[in-house]
């Protein structure tokens, strides 16, 4: 799906990541941990083409990122669902339209999608919030709306950056179960988090690979975190 080969990323001379190699196989489930500021977000951005590596090679769906123009990256993002910690929305549009935004921008919006949208909103528990504006949502509701938006195009890969950062324990459990459920449906999932409790809680649900970023490099972390 997504492959990094000896990738380095530096910003104005300072190396943030170096020597990173990883293959995200279809249907795999990864946790990515590491202290704040260790480069988890940078790593994810490299995975969905928001950043280009300063060294090494990133392949997204078997295409070399270096050879992809901006439109090609846009097309690849329709197959990658991204959930940020501070998820942003179009604040002037109701939640339902925000969730359906990937359909709109890819020209796939049609009345047939209404059922799909309703089903997805029910699945993430936002049935009541169809017409609400994003600023009216709570932190947990925003995370779930972002997840729904990331899923509406039925992507192959889901990259979540601290999806449980702004929510309480119960809500983070719920989001985790949603992501595990997606993984069982065959999606590739990667969750960046510094919440070790969450990783422990996932142990009984899914066979996850744990990765750790520290000192600018990516290492396989033990299963016993």
């Amino acid at each position, binding site marked *: 799906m997504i492959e990094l080969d000896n990738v380095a990323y530096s910003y104005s001379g300072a190396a943030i990541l170096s020597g990173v190699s990883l293959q995200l196989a279809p249907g795999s489930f990864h946790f990515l941990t590491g202290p704040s500021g260790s480069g988890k977000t940078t790593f994810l*951005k490299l995975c969905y083409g928001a950043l280009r590596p300063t060294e090494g090679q990133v392949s997204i769906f078997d295409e070399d990122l270096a050879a992809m123009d901006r439109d090609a990256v*846009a*097309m690849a993002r*329709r197959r990658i669902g991204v959930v*940020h910690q501070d998820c942003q929305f*179009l604040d002037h549009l109701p939640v339902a339209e925000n969730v359906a935004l990937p359909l709109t*921008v890819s020209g796939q919006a049609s009345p047939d999608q209404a059922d799909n949208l309703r089903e997805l909103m029910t699945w993430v528990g936002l049935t009541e919030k169809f017409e609400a504006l994003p600023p009216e949502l709570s932190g947990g509701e925003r995370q779930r709306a972002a997840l729904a938006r990331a899923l509406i195009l039925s992507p192959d890969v889901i990259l979540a950056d601290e999806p449980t950062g702004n929510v309480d324990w119960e809500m983070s459990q719920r989001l985790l179960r949603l992501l595990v459920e997606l993984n069982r449906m065959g999606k590739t999932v990667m969750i960046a988090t510094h919440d070790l409790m969450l990783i422990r809680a996932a142990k009984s649900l899914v066979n996850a690979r744990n990765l750790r970023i520290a000192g600018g490099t990516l290492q396989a972390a033990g299963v016993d975190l």
Partner: protein
Amino acid sequence: MSALDRIKTLAARDAGADRVVPPAGFTVRLTLFTAAAMAFLTVFALALSLAAGRLATSWGEDLARASTIRISAPEGQLAAQTAAVLRVLEQTPGVASARALSPEEQRALLEPWFGPDLPVESLPMPQLVEVQETGDGYDADGLRLRLQAEAPGAVLDEHSRWRRPLVTAAGRLRLLGWVAILLIGAATGAMVTLAANAALAANAQVIAVLRLVGATDGYIAGAFVRRFTLRTLAGAAAGTLIGLLALLVMPAGGDTGGILTGLRFAGLQWLWPLFVPPLAAVVAFFATELAARRVLGELA
């Protein structure tokens, strides 16, 4: 996507794309107002250019007509001096043709003053010579000197020569009008670029969200381009309308009018201002397109 495709999409109007850009109150009104003001000014510059053009043409035709040489000489010398004048004219560069008027033509000229029964033959009438100039005209001072030497009784009468600088001035005025229109067009483009840049900067979050969910640059640019193009079109249409109304209520000076009272359109020229709003929209289209592409190119 080519510009043509983009214009097609623009006409098709994708409601979804229109909604992704939040409605902004103040820049909308500013763009509308500026487009209206620019169109209003364009209508006047256009009227000025066309009026100056008409003036230059009609005065130029007057000029092209003719000058006259009047030969007053004692009875016996008249024929000799006339022949001398015609010879001089033949050799003068800038003179297309020259011809002595017949007695019948001279009588016809005098008829309005003295009636048809005037015995012209018995009067010491001066001989008139009609001179047709070429486009370049002749050197009047040089011709006067030569006439003085060859035919002392000949007087060169350039009845419309004084208008020549005015024709040049009218031509310049027309040019200035067109330059003003070009400048207004460029200023409109600059204004739309500034407004579009401001809108793009104010909507950085919107653009980031759209990029994240897989919108292409063309889609994002299109949403902004559509908004600014339609706004400019509406503003320019209003400005053009007001400009035309203002021209309509200008007092007409009739035939005696000069550049001031002639500041209006004539006949089919009234159709010209109708091109102002579409042209303003085209300028806005390309200005926003360029601004959007530049801003988007700098983003991740």
